[in-house]
């Protein structure tokens, strides 16, 4: 039976950020159903009453007091949560945050400020990244390198050095990680859970973690390796160390590996290590064929399949009512992707369906763009040729506008396939931008499904409702703009194939 517990601290003032952080931490403690940490004003008591967590003690609080109120599933859970909350309230400074203005300027200063830190995120121009990462390693820190343009030989040397020190190097060019529930760089807000992810791909990690989160499960850790870790020259050093880490992590019960197909020798190395693990693995080497998997591993051909295998359940892929492309339109599909792995996944689904597809970053089975009539075309707008000197399309969706206008105007294009990637680091309102662009192009939403001009527009939205851009609101904006939103990127690709009449599911 649920219990309500209130703790009142007289005349206590805590910084707003500390209040919010403690409030969120308490709400996620085991057995806690609802929690709030607010000053004891009459209006706030109304809020706690509305939430069903105001007890007699809280009701007596004064406006200068701090009320900690929680409802737990039983008294043991409630008392444990209350004790933890009191500890957090009494030690706000130790876990305080630092403003950008006061941010330390050197790694040593940062360590002085936060002696318990064990990870440094390096985001400096590529020329300097290795030196900074080496400094961090020598200070005993694991490293995530967001920077790109690091020579592969330097990457390999750095990772060997880190391995000797027992430290992990995520990256270079590592855009996504979730460590202990903390999203780093481009990552989504997902609940903690028992699935660990190791990924050489940022949007691959994002799509898998979000599909798992939207199915009601959670992520223990998501460890990015950088796109070249499975290259023969690097030899999967980070991937192997990440497997060690997740093997040792009691909260992780299932591990997902996400990557482009590795070099054969490296695949053997990784799969041999997987075979030694007591935990089940899902291996999603997008486009890889004939993998010799050990008994504790299963292969997933797509990110969606990887999420499903990790959960042991199918994800929700109920499709929107899907019209066929109008007879007057061409039957080509044009994919315009912000996420490189999402682009690769779409290509693989097309090739698996027996369709020829070209890309500026071709996945196995796809062709490079020739400039002539390429047929179905999947463009990774995050590739270097589009982002040199410009922001990535996940940060600035306008990067896609020109390509989108071209596709809308091309009578051969029957379906446009898009991805909208949410989360920390991403644009604050990518769907709003897309909707505005479509509106400016005089596409009338109501007539979209039956209009006699313009292609169908299909999209996936990689994100969760807890993201800074809540997914439900983003989906609504797209739907109102006439975009058909699929539950996953794989589903969007399959719907595109159905819409051109090339296949049925």
């Amino acid at each position, binding site marked *: 039976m649920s219990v309500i517990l209130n703790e009142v601290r007289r005349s206590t003032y805590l910084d707003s950020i500390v209040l*919010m952080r403690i409030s969120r931490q308490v709400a996620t403690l085991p057995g806690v159903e609802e929690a709030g940490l607010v000053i004891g*004003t009459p209006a706030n008591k109304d809020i706690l009453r509305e939430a069903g967590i105001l007890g007699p003690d809280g009701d007596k609080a004064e406006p200068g007091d701090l009320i900690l109120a929680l409802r737990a599933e039983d008294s043991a859970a409630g008392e444990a949560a209350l004790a933890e909350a009191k500890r957090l309230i009494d030690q706000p400074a130790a876990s305080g945050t630092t403003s950008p203005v006061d941010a330390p300027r050197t790694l040593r200063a940062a360590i002085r400020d936060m002696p318990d830190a064990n990870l440094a995120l390096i985001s400096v121009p590529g020329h300097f990244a290795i030196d900074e990462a080496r400094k961090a390693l020598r200070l005993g820190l694991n490293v995530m390198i967001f920077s790109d343009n690091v020579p592969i030989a330097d990457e390999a040397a750095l990772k060997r050095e880190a391995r000797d020190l027992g430290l992990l190097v995520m990256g270079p060019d590592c855009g996504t990680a979730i460590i202990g529930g903390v999203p780093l760089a481009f990552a989504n807000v997902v609940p903690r859970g028992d699935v660990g992810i190791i990924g050489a791909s940022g949007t691959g990690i994002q799509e898998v973690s979000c599909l798992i989160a939207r199915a009601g499960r959670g992520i223990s850790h998501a460890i990015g390796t950088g796109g070249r870790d499975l290259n023969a020259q690097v030899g999967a050093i980070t991937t192997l160390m990440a497997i060690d880490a997740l093997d040792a992590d009691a909260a992780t019960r299932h591990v997902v590996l996400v990557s482009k197909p590795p070099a054969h020798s490296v695949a053997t190395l990784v799969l041999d290590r997987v075979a030694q693990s007591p935990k089940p693995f899902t291996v999603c080497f997008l486009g890889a064929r004939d993998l010799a998997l050990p008994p504790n591993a299963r292969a997933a051909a797509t990110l969606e399949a990887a999420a499903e295998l990790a959960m042991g359940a199918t994800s929700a892929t109920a499709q929107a009512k899907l019209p066929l492309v109008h007879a007057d339109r061409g039957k080509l599909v044009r994919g315009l992707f912000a996420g490189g792995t999402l682009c690769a996944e779409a290509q693989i689904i097309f090739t698996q369906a027996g369709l020829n597809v070209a890309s500026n970053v071709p996945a196995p089975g796809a062709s490079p763009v020739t400039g002539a009539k390429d047929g179905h075309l999947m463009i990774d707008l995050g590739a270097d040729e589009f982002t040199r000197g410009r922001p990535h399309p996940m940060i600035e969706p306008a990067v896609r506008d020109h390509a989108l206008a071209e596709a809308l105007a091309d009578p051969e294009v029957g379906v446009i396939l898009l991805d909208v990637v949410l989360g920390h680091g991403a644009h604050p309102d990518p769907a709003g931008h897309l909707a505005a662009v479509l509106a400016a192009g005089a596409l009338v939403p109501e007539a979209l499904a039956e209009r006699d001009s313009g292609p169908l527009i299909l999209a996936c939205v990689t994100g969760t409702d807890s993201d800074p851009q809540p997914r439900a609101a983003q989906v609504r904006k797209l739907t109102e703009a006439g975009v058909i939103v699929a539950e996953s990127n794989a589903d969007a690709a399959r719907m595109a194939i159905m819409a051109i009449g090339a296949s049925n599911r």
Partner: protein
Amino acid sequence: MTLDTNVMQSRDGWNIRTASHADPDVVAPILRAGILAREFCRGGAHAEVAAVFERSLYLRSADIFVCLGAPAVGNGPLTLIANFGGSNLSDLGFRPGRPAFICDRYIAIGDKARFPFDRCELWRRPRWPRAQSSLQLTEVARAIARLTAAEAPEEGLGRLSCWHERGAGETPLMRLARPRVARFQSWMNDVLEAQRDPTTASLEPVVGLIGLGPGLTPSGDDFLAGALAILDALAERQAHAALARTIAAAPRGLTSPLSDCLLRAAAAGHVGETLCRAISAVISGAAETAVAAIRHVGHSSGWDMLTGVTTTLAVVVNARLRTAPAKILCRARQTQSKY
């Protein structure tokens, strides 16, 4: 930072006196003082440390709270800026309850720290820039509402515009706040159209927001501070005075003493530098600059203020657009009467 003659600079930039045990351990000159803070200090008072954060602490004397903070906290009417050399105040041993002495020349906290005023400059809010047209202000309000809805944290009122309808996922705060903000909008509309005498009108539409929501300064208080500031910037003097009088007339005890002090300062026309920057950007038509100005204010405080700004701005602009034809006709009649 500047050193006194008998002061050594520590490794981290703090001034540590070594000459005499009778002298304070720490001397940090106050660089700038907000107008209310300086006025209060000139009068002298015994106070105590009420709260200590990383970059600032609050001194309390009766109902007055004065913030003593590092430059990063930004100027404000009740703020004194001192150079702490980048150190965290929370590391220096100040604790709530510690006595402080305030006089015209310095502030002393216990016998450990002294903050002299001899190099202090007065900070005043800069003048508001010229406001854009009503139509342009409508656009900027919409743009900010979009940015706020997308970026504001779940806590607070920033995502108010997402919740026009009651729905799943709506927080208890939002369930209570939505109708209260609607009543505030209606009240403000009536005041602007002079349909309600604010001296006799119900206090409830304003009072209902005071003390509402999370944070050191509750979201509702921040919302009202934003509302007051935008009314001032748009020279809506009657509405500003009506709102200020209503806040002044509200019973004590609706919000924390600290937030009450800041809200009453805002009602008297005194708001902080960050909100000033945001408001200036809003009325200049720079939505993204406005959002950038408040993005790092507290956890949700900046967003709450901006929600108050845009909510009030929308009511003001609607009222102006509605009354514009009448004013034009009136001016036309006056012109005709001259001939």
